[in-house]
């Protein structure tokens, strides 16, 4: 954590998350084949690959939705035998979902407050008796959520319900819900889908600014965005890592070109 120089830090820092030799089999299908991936603190790590390459599976392993058949997961140097999704927030890992997964019957503000739950102090009994402490706690959570909403420029929608809002606003609300927990590692699942090119530019700047305080793992189809914001990129194809390096290295890697050209020729045939 001491060094800020990217080139040296990536090897000496303890990684936020370190997936080693991850293999995932669904029945006879090998979705991931000894895949390794490590995200260093305050770095943006992209995962790309053709459809069906195993990006989403890798993401699901990283947050405990899928148990790997073999391999190990290390969070900040400590091996975790089994990750459970609800423990992630407490471990400082936040994730956005492709489908956003907003709580439709809660207001935007309440949605984000749920994300801040990690910082809540009062337990069941204090809530049951409505103790002043629990009310103060609530107020603190609301303030925290409100300031995250303002940071993302959607504070004006705080009292609205997600269902009535335009898609880009809903995306920001979902992001606010992930960020309000102040994670050390943020997993972004296709954040650019459904956004206009202007909005994607803004998103790129946002991701860069987030990387000043947290590691970011990004799964994304939008190549321009990935090439622009990532410090490191891992390329998957048929469940295997076929390339890994800086955007420039990956761009000129023949194996990567093959994979993408191969995919496009399959699609046209």
């Amino acid at each position, binding site marked *: 954590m001491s060094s800020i120089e990217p080139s040296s830090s990536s090897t000496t820092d303890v990684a936020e998350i370190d997936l080693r030799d991850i293999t995932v089999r669904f029945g006879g299908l090998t979705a991931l084949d000894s895949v390794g991936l490590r995200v260093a603190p305050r770095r943006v790590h992209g995962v790309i690959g053709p459809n069906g390459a195993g990006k989403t599976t890798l993401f699901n392993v990283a*947050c405990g*939705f899928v148990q790997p058949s073999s391999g190990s997961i290390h969070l900040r140097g400590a091996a975790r035998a089994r990750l459970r*999704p*609800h*423990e*992630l*927030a*407490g471990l400082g890992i*936040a*994730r956005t*979902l492709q489908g*956003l*997964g*907003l*709580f*439709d*019957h*809660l*207001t935007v*503000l*309440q949605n984000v*407050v*749920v*994300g801040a*739950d*990690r910082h*809540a102090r*009062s337990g*069941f009994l204090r*809530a*049951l*008796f*409505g*103790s*002043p402490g*629990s*009310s103060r*706690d*609530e*107020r603190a*959570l*609301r303030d925290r959520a*409100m300031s995250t909403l303002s940071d993302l420029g959607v*504070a*004006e*929608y*705080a*009292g*609205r*319900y997600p*269902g*009535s809002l335009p898609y880009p606003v809903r995306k920001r609300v979902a992001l606010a*819900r*992930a960020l309000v*927990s102040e994670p050390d590692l943020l997993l972004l699942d296709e954040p650019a889908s459904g956004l206009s090119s202007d909005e994607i530019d803004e998103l790129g700047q946002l991701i860069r600014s987030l990387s000043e305080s947290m590691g970011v793992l990004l799964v994304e189809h939008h190549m321009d965005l990935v090439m622009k914001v990532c410090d490191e990129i891992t390329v998957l194809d048929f469940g295997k890592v076929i390339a890994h390096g800086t955007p420039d290295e990956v761009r000129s890697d023949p194996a990567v070109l093959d994979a993408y050209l191969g995919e496009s020729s399959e699609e046209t045939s």
Partner: protein
Amino acid sequence: MSETTTTTPSTDGATRGQQLSALWQDYPLIRHLVTAAIGLAVVIVVLTAVDDFQATKLTEMAYIAIAAGGLTLLTGLNGQISLGHGALMAFGAYTTALLYDDREVGTPLVVVVLASVLVTVLVGILIGIAAARLHGPYLAGATLTLAIAVPEIGKYFDQLGGDQGLRLFVPEIPQWATDIAYYLTGSDPSRSKYVAFLAWVTLIVVFILLANLASSRIGRRWAAVRDDEVAAELAGIDLTRARVSAFVVSAAAAGAAGAMFALAQRTVGPLGFSLNLSLTLLAIVVLGGLGSLTGAILLSGVLVFLPQIVMDLGSGADLDATRASQMATLTFGLVMVLVILLAPRGLMGGVRALGLRLRAARAGRRTPPATGGSSSSGAAPSPTTDPASPSSTAETAEPDDGSTPITTKKGTS
């Protein structure tokens, strides 16, 4: 929300009003206690005015509402459907009956009621753990077996009175209660009014606690689990714990309701806890507006008093007793159909939608109509996490209405 400072005239009165309003918004306990105090006053006045028969009916309304209130949190807030809450009431009722099986028993009422709640909570934990693994129709099915099995258990064991059930002895009215009643009303309280008072005080206590939970972090977590499991998990919510806790809380309310049932009926038998009771409770929760505690109380009142009113009307119109009681059933069916047609989100959902529409209309008169979509969007989310505070939904319809009176929520700034 910086508009707070600009829109409200900055006179002393307004700022004090704002402070009070902020206090009201930020401390649910204050809100709920004030509501409860008003409720208690109303209960005393009403119980003084009514006759014994109506007091008995009011008791029935109270224990049904207590159970429905618990189920409201479970079904409305947490999205779990239980067809077995009538059976959970049986656990509370039988506990009370067993503890008051003799005239000489001097156990304080509070202890007996708490014991009934505790027994039901233990049962609720067991069922809740099993239920947390089940979803939708499967959970309904599992709790349905509870509704069918529990009365049979009561029939089977002689210790539980078999078919006849258990008789219990309601403790004497304490002297101080008689004194207070005499001081207030000028006459000694009857036994049925005493029980009605107990049931309504229990209702008020239970509903304060339920409303506290609903407007707290716990209620918000339940609602998050209901709306999106995956996102809730990622926010750090343990799904199983959330589901089990919601089930246990609703079971506790059912236990308290059962205790009041026992005191009111003075006999606890298997027939009292049929599947019909469980279905009735669920109907109240759905018709009252999923998630609305107020709706649960109101609908319980409709359920208990409507048949009687219709029967009175029927016999007034020279119908014989059978016809009149058929009319009562018919009317209740019609009310159900009407509520579902006119207010698909239940009674309180309909009231909120109406309120929002009125506000939107009023706002529309002052500013150009920018609220085209908001009347539908505002009406949609009926089960807020805070059923005791209508104003928390009010702000949804008017995100930028400068003319909002200071009573609307501004505390989020």
